[in-house]
C-alpha cells in the first residue's frame, strides 16, 4: 500500500478531512509507517507520548489499568486516530492501546505535526474547528446529563 492510499485514509479522518490533499501527502510522506503484531502495545498508559497513530488497517483494544488488571474500554479500527491529545499537550498517555490483529498505522510525530501546522496555518484552523466541534459536543452531552 502506497502513499496515495494513505492520503485517502487521512482524508477520512475528521481532523484532516478538509485539509488540502497535497499537504496530507507531504505529511504522509514525512511520517513513518509502523506495523504492530497482535499483542504488541502501540502505547502504554502513563508513558510520555510524542506521537499519534492513524490506523490504516487492523484493530486494537483500548485498555485502562485498574487494580484488578487492565479493563477494555473500547476498540479502534481502520481510519481511527489514537493518541492525538499527546501531540497537542504534554500529558501522559491516558490509556494503553494493544493491537488485536496485525495493525498497520501511520506514525505522526509531534515535531512533524507542529511543523506542518506552522508551515500551513490553514491546517491549524481546520484542527481548531474540529476541536471546537468536539468541545461543543461534550458540552451538549454535559447539558443532557444534567
Amino acid at each position, binding site marked *: *500500500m*502506497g*502513499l*496515495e492510499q*494513505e492520503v485517502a485514509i487521512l482524508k477520512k479522518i475528521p481532523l484532516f478531512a478538509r485539509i488540502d490533499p*497535497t499537504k496530507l*501527502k*507531504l505529511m504522509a*510522506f*514525512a511520517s*513513518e*509507517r*509502523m*506495523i*504492530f*503484531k497482535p499483542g*504488541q502495545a*502501540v502505547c502504554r498508559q502513563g508513558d510520555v507520548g510524542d506521537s499519534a497513530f492513524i490506523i490504516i488497517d487492523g484493530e486494537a483494544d483500548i485498555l485502562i489499568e485498574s487494580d484488578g488488571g487492565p479493563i477494555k474500554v473500547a476498540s479502534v479500527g481502520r481510519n481511527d486516530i489514537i493518541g492525538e491529545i499527546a501531540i497537542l499537550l504534554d500529558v501522559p498517555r491516558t490509556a494503553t492501546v494493544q493491537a488485536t490483529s496485525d495493525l498497520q498505522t501511520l506514525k505522526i510525530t509531534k515535531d512533524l505535526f507542529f*511543523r506542518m501546522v506552522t*508551515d*500551513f496555518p490553514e491546517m491549524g484552523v481546520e484542527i481548531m474547528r474540529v476541536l471546537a466541534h468536539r468541545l461543543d459536543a461534550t458540552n451538549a452531552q454535559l447539558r443532557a446529563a444534567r
Partner: protein
Amino acid sequence: MEPNLLRYIWRNSRAEQIRILFLVIVSLPFYYISLNLPKDIVNRGIQGRGFDGPMDTETFGAIPVPFSERIFGESRMLFEGFSLEQWQLLMALSLTFLGLVCVNGLFKLVVNTAKGRLGERMLRRLRYELADHLLRFRQSQLKRMKSAEVATMVKDEVEPLGGFIGDAFVTPVFLGGQAMTAMAFILVQSLPLGLVALAILVVQAVLIPKLRVKLLLLGKERQLTARQLAGRISEMMDGSVEVHTNDTSNFERAELTSRLGKIFEIRFEIYKRKFAIKFLNNFLSQVTPFVFYAGGGLLAIYGYMDIGALVAVIAAYKDLPGPVRDLINWEQQRQDVRIKYEQVIEQFQSTDIMEPALQDPDVPVAPLEGNISANSLVYTDENGDRLVDGVSFEFPLDSHVALVGDASSGKDQVALMLVGLVAPTAGHLAIGGKDLTRLPESALGRRMGYAGPDAYLFPQSVRENLVYGLRHRPIDEPVYPESEAAVHKWRADEAARSGNCLLDVNAEWVDRISAGAQDEESLDRSLIQAVSVVDMEEDIYRFGLNGSIDPEQRPGVAQDLLRARVALTERLREVGADSFVVRFDADKYNPNATMAENLLFGTPKSADFDVDAMADNPIVLRALDEAELMDDLVQKGFTIAQTMVELFADLPPGHPFFEQFSFIDADDLPEFRQLIQRAEARGVAGLGDDDRRRLLRLPFRYIEARHRLDLIDETLEREVVTARKLIAAAVERECPDAVEFFDPASYNAAASMMDNILFGRLVFGQAEAQETVGRAVTEVLREMDLREAVCRVGLDFQVGVGGKRLNATQRQKLAIARALIKRPDVLVINEATAVMDGATRARLIHTVLGYREGAGVVWVLERAAMADRFDDVIVLRQGRLMERGKYDDLARDGTTLPQLVDAD
C-alpha cells in the same frame, strides 16, 4: 638555557665550526688561482706573449723550490715543467681552468652542505630543548603560557636560526680577513687615502648599527605582535561557541583589525627605516671613491703619489665594499636572530622547572607502601590566597578516602599536591615516609593513577588512549630488518649529535606487565575489563558493531561472525522476529534496501560505485541498457521528480524537510519543475540526454519500504536482478576490487560487523524491530563468546580531536579507565565525575571502589553524600580540615558534613 645566542652556538657546535673554517681556508688558494688564470690564458695562451714564433715553446707547470732564490741565490726547480707550443699551452691553461672550476665548485658544495647540516642540527637541538623544557615545566608555569604562542615559537620563530648558524663564525672570519687585507694594502700604498677610507668605514661600522638599534626594537615588537596574533586566533577558535552565543563576532573582527593595524604599522615603519639606512650606507660607500678620485688625483698631480699606486688603491678599494657589505649584512642577520632567540628563550627561562633527573626513565621504581601523610600542608596561589591552610592527615595507602567540601574548600588542590602536579607552598607531604616533592615522576606516574575534572584524550583510538598510561619507557629494543638497520643506526646517531632523546619511538613502549597482561590479546582483555568497571563496555561494544575488521588479519573472528550470521537467523525465528530482517538474496529484490544496493548487491569500495556516482558509472549504465531497465528507471525518476515537486513546492528553501526527506535540493526544484513540464509535453522518451540523466540519478536512493511511492513492481524487480548479474560480471571482469559483493558464505570486509551479522536490512515500519534485533544480536554474540571480539574492534574507535567524537561523560570514563589500567598503588580521582548524572556517578563510584578493593583510592567528591561508600572521610572548608572520620559518625555528630549534604 644559554641566554647568549653566539655562545650557545659555539658551545654546541665548536668542532664542526672549526672544521668548516678549515675547509674554507683550504679552498682559498684555489679560488685566487682561478681568479688569476683568465689573464694568463688571454696574455700567453691567446695573444702569445713570450712566444717568438710558431715553433717556439714555453715551460708550463714548473714548480720552483720555495724561497730558493733567497737561500741559494738562484732559482731552483722542484719540477722542471713541460715544454709546450702556444696551442698546447692554451689547451693546458684552459684545462687547468676547467679543473679549478670543478675544484672550486666541489669546495663550495662541501662547505655549503656542511653548513646546512650544522644549521639543521642546531635547529633540531634548539627545538628539542624547547620542547624538553615544556615537558619539564610545572603546572603553574604551563598555566601562564598560551599553547598557540608556544607552538609558533617552537615551529616558526626559531626557524631562521637554522640558516644563520652555519654562517655564525665562518662568515665574519672569512669576510673580515678579506676586508682587512684590502684595507692594509691601501694603507701601505697611501697613508692619507687609507686613513680617509678607514674613517668612512668606521663611520659606516659605527653609525649604521646605531641606526639599526631602533630597527631591531621594532623587529622585536613585530615578533611579539605576530605571536600574540597566533594566540588570539586560537582563542577565537577555542571560544567559537562563546562568540556565536554572545553575538560577539563583530567585536572579534574589530579586535582583529586593530591588531592587524598595529602589525601593519610596525612592519611599514621597519620598511621605511630599512630603506633609509640602505640609502645612507650606499651613499657612504660611494663617497670613498670620490675622495680617491679627487684627493688622490690632486696628490698625483702634485707628485706626492705615483699614478700606479693610485690605480692600485682604487682597485683594492673596489674589492673592499663587497666583503664590508656582506659583513654588515651578517651583522644585521646576527642581531635579527639574536633578538628572535632571546625573545623565545625569555619564555623558557622559568625556574619553575623539574630537574631532568626526576624524569629519568631508568630510575628503578618500587611499589609505594606505608601511609600517606600530610603535615601542616599549605598552598598559596599567585595572589597570595591560602587555598589550603595547614591541613594535616595520615591514612594507609590502601584505604578508600573521600575528600569533601565546597568549591572553595581547597580539596582539589590537595589532590593535585598528592599526585605531584603542584608543589605545597609549606608543610610536608609524604608517601611511606618519603617526601613526595622529591619523588621522581616515574614513581608518581607509574605507581599512582590520576583522573581530573576535564581529562584530555589524544586524537587516536580508544585503545591508544587507554594504554597511554603504560608508555613509560621502552620495554624491548625494536628489531629492524637487515636492510633498514643502517638507516635506523644513522637516525640514532644523528639524534645523538643534536642532543635529542636517545629512546626509539618504534620500540615497544606499552608496559603490558604492569597492566597484568602478557600479550596483545590479554592486554585488550584488561582494557575491556577496565572500561567495564567505568560502565562503558556497552558503548565500546556498539563502536565495535559499527566498526569493521580485516578478515585477512583476523580470520578467526570473520569465521565466527559468519557463524553468528547463521545463528542470528535461528534466534530471530525462535523469537518470532524473522520478518524483522530482510536478508540479501542474490535472486530477489530487497525493498528495504536502496535501489543502488539492489543493483550493486554489494558494498562499494571505490567511489565510482557510491550511491551518488552510480548513474554516471559506465559499467552500471551498460548493464541498465542491456537489462532494458534504462527507460524504466528514467520513468521512475520522473515519477519521483513529479512527487517531490508536488510535495515540496510550497515549502520555503532551507526548510528541514528538504534535508530529511526530499530527493531533490530546494535549489534544484525550479529546474525540475521545468523538466517535468517538458516531459509532460513531449513524453519522457522525448527528453534530451541531459534531462534523462538528471531523472536517472533520482531512483538510486529510493527505498520502497520507506518512501512508499509504489514504484517497484514485479517486472522491475526482475529487471533489477538481471541488471545486478550483468553488473557483477562486468565488475568481476574490469575492476574486481571496486565492489565487495554480498555473499552469504563470506565475510564482507567493506561492511561493518553489524551489517555482516545481519546480512540484510532491518525492515522498515515494524514496531520495536530495531530493539528486538539488537537484543537478538547481543544474545547471539554473547552465547558464541564473540562479545569480546566485537569490543576489541570497538577499541579501535577513533575518539577525534580532544576526544570530541565522544560525549563528556564518555571522555571522563575513559580517563578513569586509563588510570585504572596501570593498576596504581593509589588512584586519585579529582572531581572526574562532575559532568555525569547522579545515577551514573553513583554506579561508577560503586564499581570502581569494588574493583579497587584492597588498593588505595583518594576521591575528591563533588557531592558530599557520595562519601558514604568510603572508609574515611576528610571534610575541608576554606582550606582547613574541619572534621574527619567515618561517614555515619560525621553525618550524625559532625557539623560541616551534614551542612554540605544538606546544601547538595
